């Protein structure tokens, strides 16, 4: 009983443990599994990442103006949905050229709001597939 009393009492004069987060940013470790990043130039369009991704957050969809990459024969465009991604980095492991074409950064994903149309945009892409 007195331990609890004592702890509550001493905590009163301690510096709080709280980090004032939005004002004081918490640095992320370099190994933090954040957003998946992609470099178009290095991609060889093997589509392994698309197949490996458990929720299907990476889609290569045919586009009218595909990037100028000689490997891209079908005219595909890489699409990535961070709101579907589960950040397991399975795609990076599947990628033949990790760290060049596809890698996992330590950036936090962005918060979306209603006007971003997170779902409907992606539905249209899935329909294209």
């Amino acid at each position: 009983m007195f331990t609890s009393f004592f702890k509550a009492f001493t905590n009163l004069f301690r510096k709080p443990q709280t980090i004032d987060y939005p004002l004081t940013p918490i640095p992320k470790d370099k190994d933090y599994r954040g957003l998946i990043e992609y470099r178009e130039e290095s991609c060889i369009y093997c589509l392994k990442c698309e197949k490996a991704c458990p929720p299907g957050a990476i889609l290569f969809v045919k586009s009218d103006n595909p990037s100028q990459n000689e490997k891209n024969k079908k005219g595909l465009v890489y699409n990535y949905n961070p709101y579907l991604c589960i950040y397991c980095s399975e795609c990076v492991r599947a990628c033949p050229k990790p760290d060049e074409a596809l890698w996992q950064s330590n950036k936090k994903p962005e918060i979306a709001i209603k006007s971003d149309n997170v779902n409907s945009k992606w539905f249209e892409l899935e329909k294209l597939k």
Partner: protein
Amino acid sequence: MFNFKKYRKKSPWILHYNAGSCNGCDIEILAALSPKYDLERFGVINTGNPKQSDIFLVTGPVTFRSRERLVELYTQMPEPKVVIALGSCTCTGGVFRDMYNVEDGIDRYIPVDVYIPGCAASPELIIDGIVKALDILEQKTKKMEKPLKLFQDASTKDGIINKRDCALKVGEKDEEN
């Protein structure tokens, strides 16, 4: 007389409902309330009572059995209210997308204002999301938004779904008068 809108921002009370998540995000909500992140700095209280809440924090991809509860809780919350979809599976279905007992994402049922990605969304992301929700809360003076899917389907499907009663109907009647 006064501009009360800006005070909405200072005391968001949250209601948390788990609509079928893996409870990773739910633990992170607890962690966000814990001393290190301390959501109460923003005036957040976890009320657990829809009638006194401003922010509806939903986790999980909406399983079939939690659909009705989700809408029920949503309709019991007074305006202005903000709905936060917490975690990837809540936003879009995540890894549970297209499973047979799951509706991909809660925005099929209730209008979502803030999407927080992450699996599981870390407390920092939750705080970011709530800060964003606070801005929305400040602006919000919307009329009762109708839940999307359940009400559209109500007339077509039989059995359990079309038992929509009291909460909304009474509200509608009053608005007409």
